[in-house]
């Protein structure tokens, strides 16, 4: 089997907006979603910078017995997935009658764990923790909740690949469809934003401390970058075999034509160049496309000194003299971690469908490596029909997706 894999629906709940139209507008305007949150300083954070995202109110949409099992990021994922399914013209009757699967990126659910342990320590009685905590605290919480809420009957699991989770979820899903094992899969990534989930990340000095100017803090590829800004939310894409999409009369938005992956086999937090290069080259090989046709590269670049430097080297090595625009949407969103691989496919899709490349905010001065890339600080209005999206993560996991406009 060698099915073509297409995207037929998208939904997103991010600091750039809670629906596709608002997110597209934020990208077009180069609007940052980053704020300073003083509550983090009270908890002892080095950095109070974060993406701003409000919790959706699902009361009235889902019952108490459905909501009690859903953690923070699951709420975002529910909203994104409901929109994506609607966008793909898939209703509950279709889901009841077909084996639609779910592969969702998620790599923590800390708040429920922290709260459970607090209750256990205080009350000395586990039954006081409540019935929702076990389901909220597992890594697979998002896929398990969405699978039940949307009556999904195909593959059902979470992909935990650090900050490449969402990208790997889409990539792995595309392989299952390519091989004919599934016709349609809900793919995506979710990221909690509560402080409990990232206090330890803040503790290793990974975050920008440019607190006096929050929207300037995330500055991927800029010479004066000083760390990432944590973000979150959820993003869902509905992927499907071309034949299934045609049979349904579904909107066919784009084709996932290449998925590359690799592991650095190196340091736990410091990325290298060779691993990402192999991921990019594999994606290009799998896609079987001419590298000249790639009109835009959505970089992983998180605004950390070493990460951006090594990605710039990898992109320069693979693209050589070709100079497609390279930007990191994290300059607007901060690092959406487990969600990022999925949200950045949607950001890139919105740009591709609307003929622009969002600015790489705060790219004021290149360093010696980013100077070799074509990084626009202002929005570029141009049409392109293919993009490449990178996602890398702790432990040296790398994922690259290539998507073609249809």
């Amino acid at each position, binding site marked *: 089997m060698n099915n073509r894999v297409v995207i037929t629906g998208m939904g997103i709940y991010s600091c750039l907006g809670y629906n596709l139209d608002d997110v597209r507008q934020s990208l077009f305007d180069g609007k940052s979603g980053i704020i300073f949150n003083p509550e983090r300083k009270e908890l002892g954070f080095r950095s109070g910078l974060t993406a701003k995202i409000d919790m959706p109110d699902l*009361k009235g949409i889902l*019952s*108490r*017995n459905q909501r*009690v099992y859903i953690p923070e990021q699951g709420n975002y994922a529910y909203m994104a997935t409901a929109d994506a399914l609607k966008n793909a013209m898939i209703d509950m009757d279709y889901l009841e009658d077909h084996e639609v699967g779910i592969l969702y990126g998620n790599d923590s659910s800390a708040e429920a764990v922290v709260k459970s342990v607090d209750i256990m320590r205080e009350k000395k009685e586990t*039954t*006081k923790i*409540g*019935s*929702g905590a076990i389901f909220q605290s597992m890594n697979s919480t998002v896929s398990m909740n969405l699978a039940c809420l949307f009556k999904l009957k195909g593959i059902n699991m979470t992909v935990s690949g650090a900050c490449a989770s969402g990208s790997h979820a889409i990539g792995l899903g595309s392989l299952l469809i390519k091989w004919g094992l599934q016709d349609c899969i809900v793919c995506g990534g979710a990221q909690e934003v509560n402080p409990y989930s990232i206090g330890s990340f803040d503790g290793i000095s990974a975050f920008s401390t440019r607190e006096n100017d929050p929207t300037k803090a995330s500055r991927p590829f800029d010479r004066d970058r000083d760390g990432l800004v944590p973000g979150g939310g959820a993003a869902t894409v509905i992927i499907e075999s071309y034949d299934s999409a045609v049979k349904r009369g579904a909107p066919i938005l784009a084709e996932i034509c290449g998925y590359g992956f690799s592991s650095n086999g190196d340091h736990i937090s410091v990325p290298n160049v060779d691993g990402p290069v192999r991921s990019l080259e594999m994606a290009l090989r799998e896609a079987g496309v001419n590298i000249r046709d790639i009109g835009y590269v959505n970089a992983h670049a998180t605004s950390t000194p070493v990460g951006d430097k090594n990605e710039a080297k990898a992109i320069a090595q693979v693209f050589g003299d070709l100079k497609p625009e390279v930007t990191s949407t994290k300059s607007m969103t901060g690092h959406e971690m487990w969600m990022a691989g999925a949200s950045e496919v949607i950001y890139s899709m919105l740009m591709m469908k609307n003929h622009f490349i969002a600015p790489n905010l705060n790219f004021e001065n290149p360093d010696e490596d980013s100077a070799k890339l074509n990084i626009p600080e202002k929005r570029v209005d141009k049409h392109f029909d293919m993009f490449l999206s990178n996602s890398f993560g702790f432990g040296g996991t790398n994922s690259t997706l290539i998507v073609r406009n249809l």
Partner: protein
Amino acid sequence: MKKEEFIPKVNDALAQEFEVEIEEITPDADIKETLDLDSLSLVDMVAIIEDMFEVSIKNQEIAQVKTFNDLYDFIEGKINE
């Protein structure tokens, strides 16, 4: 605490937690049906009662409780243990 005193408090707490109208909670109504309890949400109901009256409830004890009246009697017995 007398039964008449705690009944409104119990009803209020259960109506709020399980999102039902207070009028739906009547003495002879079936608890599981009224509050839409399954084996998991039953754990939450027990925790509410335990917290409210500072008592400890065993699974087999609560299994005997079918209606709200049964629950009020059960609580009264627990308080007087």
